[in-house]
């Protein structure tokens, strides 16, 4: 079920080198990227906010209880895989509420984690054509909107975390015959985005950058990406009446930096690192998330070939 190329970062906090040596290659084989936490797990967790899961170990009754409580309070969306060493720690974990972990394991039954990781993280098969198209059309949209920038797209990954990164985000609904949800872009509201977008348009303002200008640029980039996705993957003839008449509330907590779409499904993320070739401004990172929280019907997936030609002709006037 796991598609090569789509990964997910997981944090491993374990004091046993033997456990790490066994676990890390195992999860890598499954498409997970293991980050080994050294020191205080909660501090490391705080610095890694786009994770797919956490692997921890049981050391003692009190310590595990405190850790489980903290994880539940801070990052309860993350599946927790807890390792036990002996029968008594296994029994202790089994008696805990299932909210405190996704699964327990020991090093002798590590293979048993495979089905649970698939269920928790790699439960959907994302069409390779869609993954490739999102990457190329977004790179093209960014390239056409930002002058004098190098843009690199890192391999796509899945996150269970619900934390929004950066200062600014946009959301736009997507409704096709086979998937429904949102596209979200997240950035720091740095100078680079604004300056290079304005430069690309040969526009220069003497006054200071206003946050509204940066919002407007990001909105326009979101709009172009949305349009390309829709043209490529939405067949209007197949859109059923009533498909998009239901919605769920989105909840954003700005104090906690938390956003909830009402679904446990992992978010499909792309990270673009944008650097200024003229070295006037620091690099910026743009996170692009696809949140298919409303529906997912991959058997209805369709890629419309003509849209590729259309996007190549972007900017040109087609007279009828």
């Amino acid at each position, binding site marked *: 079920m796991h598609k090569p190329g789509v990964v997910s970062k997981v944090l491993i906090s374990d004091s046993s080198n033997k456990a790490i040596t066994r676990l890390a290659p195992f999860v890598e084989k499954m498409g997970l990227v293991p980050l080994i936490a050294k020191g205080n797990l909660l501090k490391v967790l705080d610095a890694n906010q786009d994770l797919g899961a956490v692997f921890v170990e049981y050391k003692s009754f009190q310590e595990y209880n405190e850790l489980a409580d903290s994880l539940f309070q801070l990052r309860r969306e993350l599946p927790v895989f807890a390792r036990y060493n002996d029968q008594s720690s296994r029994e202790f974990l089994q008696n805990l509420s299932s909210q405190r972990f996704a699964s327990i394991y020991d090093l002798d039954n590590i293979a048993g984690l495979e089905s649970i990781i698939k269920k928790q993280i790699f439960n959907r098969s994302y069409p390779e054509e869609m993954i490739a198209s999102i990457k190329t059309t977004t790179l093209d*949209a960014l390239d*056409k*909107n930002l002058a004098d920038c190098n843009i690199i797209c890192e391999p796509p990954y899945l996150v269970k975390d619900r934390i929004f990164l950066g200062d600014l985000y946009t959301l736009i609904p997507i409704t096709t015959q086979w998937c429904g949800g949102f596209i979200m872009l997240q950035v720091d509201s740095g100078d680079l985005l604004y300056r290079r*977008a304005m430069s690309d*348009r*040969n*526009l220069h303002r003497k006054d200071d950058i206003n946050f*509204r*200008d940066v919002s*407007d*640029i990001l*909105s*326009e980039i979101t*709009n*172009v990406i*949305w*349009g*390309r996705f*829709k*043209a490529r993957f*939405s067949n*209007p*003839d197949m859109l059923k009446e009533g498909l998009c008449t239901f919605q769920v509330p989105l909840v954003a907590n700005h104090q906690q930096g938390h956003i909830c779409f009402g679904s446990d499904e992992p978010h499909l993320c792309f990270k673009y690192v944008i650097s200024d070739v003229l070295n006037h401004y620091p690099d910026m990172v743009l996170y692009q998330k696809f949140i298919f929280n409303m529906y997912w019907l991959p058997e209805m997936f369709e890629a*419309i070939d*003509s*849209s590729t030609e*259309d*996007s190549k*002709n*972007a*900017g*040109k*006037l*087609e*007279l*009828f």
Partner: protein
Amino acid sequence: MCEVLVVDDSETVRIEVSQYLQSQGISVDTAKDGLDGLDKAKQHPDLKLILCDINMPQMDGLTMVEKLKSADNMDDVHVIMLTTESCRNMKMKGKSIGVEGWIIKPFNGDAAIAGIKKLIGQ
């Protein structure tokens, strides 16, 4: 005087397109959505062309064009859609209500100016 009306909910696009057209010697006004576009179009008797987005609040671009074309003295105003939409059905709908050209965003002035000048008779 206003030869071209740019209708788009993005201020950046309004500024970008209008500054480009002005640099080509074309007089321009802007509107921020379909309702505003209808109002502005009626205020400019010398209007020759509307460059119009589709997805906008209050009133979408195609509805605006439909209303405009059915209004008195407005059916000879040329319309080009400037939009992220590129599906065939939408283009066909546009054509059926009197849209004469289509530009997929982002705007590229140099690639579009010859056609724009042709439509406004420059």
